[in-house]
């Protein structure tokens, strides 16, 4: 070869990428350079090993999930069509119902009501084994100070020891009104309660003690001038009533 041999040429030779004219010249040169010959053989051996190991995949029967349907593009179009149809249906229904506005205390208001939100947060964190709370009861002072700071008003973790429930700890959540605090309690039988506390628009008087049942969760809730409170649990309505009263009294003062 008239031009100097580069490493790229060696790769091209090993990979069979040289044309016939280059090949003859290259092999003459290579015969005089055994160290490069060994390198080329090593690379070829690598490729051969890859083929020995992975070529079997070529002969395997194809998994059914990899075979596209015979009319793939149409199939995709049908799916798109279905999406468009659903959206159109939604628009039509929405248009048909345009004058039937919900009352202010209707479905939308219920969806983010205090007991609903509390029951959802309860259902999310109560099954948690490893991380039920962000800050444990062993750091109760820090927990209460932190949540008070985030909710913007002094808060406390009620004591339910007299009812057999110990504070596990608490966490900060987000809600429609901003920051929400959740305290978790646990009994010796590993039953859990959560107390959900969120900011409410300031009102002179709060609302009275109320009960709601959301997805198998009993919720007792009330508001005072600053916060909305909701105690959630699944220990039965009577139990929850007495526990709720206990918490209510501790915040009522």
């Amino acid at each position, binding site marked *: 070869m008239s031009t100097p041999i580069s*490493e*790229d040429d060696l*790769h*091209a030779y090993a*990979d069979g*990428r040289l044309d016939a004219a280059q090949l003859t010249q290259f092999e003459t040169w290579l015969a005089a350079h055994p160290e490069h010959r060994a390198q080329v053989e*090593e*690379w070829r051996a*690598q*490729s051969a*090993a*890859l*083929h*020995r*190991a*992975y*070529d079997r*995949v*070529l*002969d*395997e029967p*194809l*998994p059914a*999930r*990899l*075979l*596209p349907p*015979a009319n*793939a*593009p149409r199939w*995709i179009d049908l799916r798109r069509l279905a999406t468009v149809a659903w959206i159109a249906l939604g628009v039509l229904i929405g248009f048909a119902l345009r004058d039937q506005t919900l009352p202010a205390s209707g479905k939308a208001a219920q969806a983010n009501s205090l007991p609903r939100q509390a029951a959802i947060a309860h259902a999310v964190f109560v099954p*948690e*084994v*490893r*991380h039920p709370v962000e800050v444990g009861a062993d750091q109760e002072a820090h927990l209460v100070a932190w949540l008070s700071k985030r909710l913007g008003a002094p808060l406390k973790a009620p004591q339910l020891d007299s009812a057999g429930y110990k504070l596990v700890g608490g966490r900060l959540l987000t809600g429609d009104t901003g920051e929400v605090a959740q305290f978790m309690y646990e009994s010796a039988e590993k039953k859990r309660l959560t107390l959900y506390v969120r900011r409410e628009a300031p009102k002179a008087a709060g609302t009275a003690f109320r009960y709601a049942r959301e997805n198998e969760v009993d919720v007792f809730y009330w508001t005072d001038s600053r916060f909305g409170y909701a105690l959630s649990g699944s220990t039965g309505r009577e139990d929850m009533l007495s526990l709720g009263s206990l918490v209510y009294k501790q915040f009522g003062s």
Partner: protein
Amino acid sequence: MSDSRIPPIPAIPDAPPLNHRDAIVAEIPRLRRYARALTGNGDLADDLVQDTLERALGKWRLWQQSRELRPWLFSIMHNLHVDGRRREHRVDFRDTDDLPLPAQRANQQDSLELRDLDRALALLPPDQREVLLLVGLEELSYAEVARALNIPQGTVMSRLSRARIRFKAVLAGEAAPLLKVVSP
């Protein structure tokens, strides 16, 4: 007059396919072989192939404009694989109790050599592994590799050189553990 909306039949060197679906299906074994070597795991490989096929069938009109099907399919797979690697680096927020066991890279049916190669390939940086496999196993030309990976051909050659040096060292049991390099 032919309808100008109908895209031209693609030029495929060997055995012109009847339509794009058949052409793509004919490439599935090659895609599976490459994906199997790239990921070191049969299930992950077929997931990657399935995603590649879905995207290819969804975008086949784009392929009609380019000429060769195989590098195009490998480029789709490359992009999906890079996306998948990025996802792997994200934090998994699931509880450790719920995390699946790490995927087995080889099962008992796999030969010893296959296991050795799986292990050796896993010790190559992904961009070197891709070039080594596309050249050595899939036998793409350097220009096709450059197109599939969307990099200059000079970069293909330098990656190939580094990959072959490292692969040799790894197979000989000489390679130091791979350090994670932050790509620029």
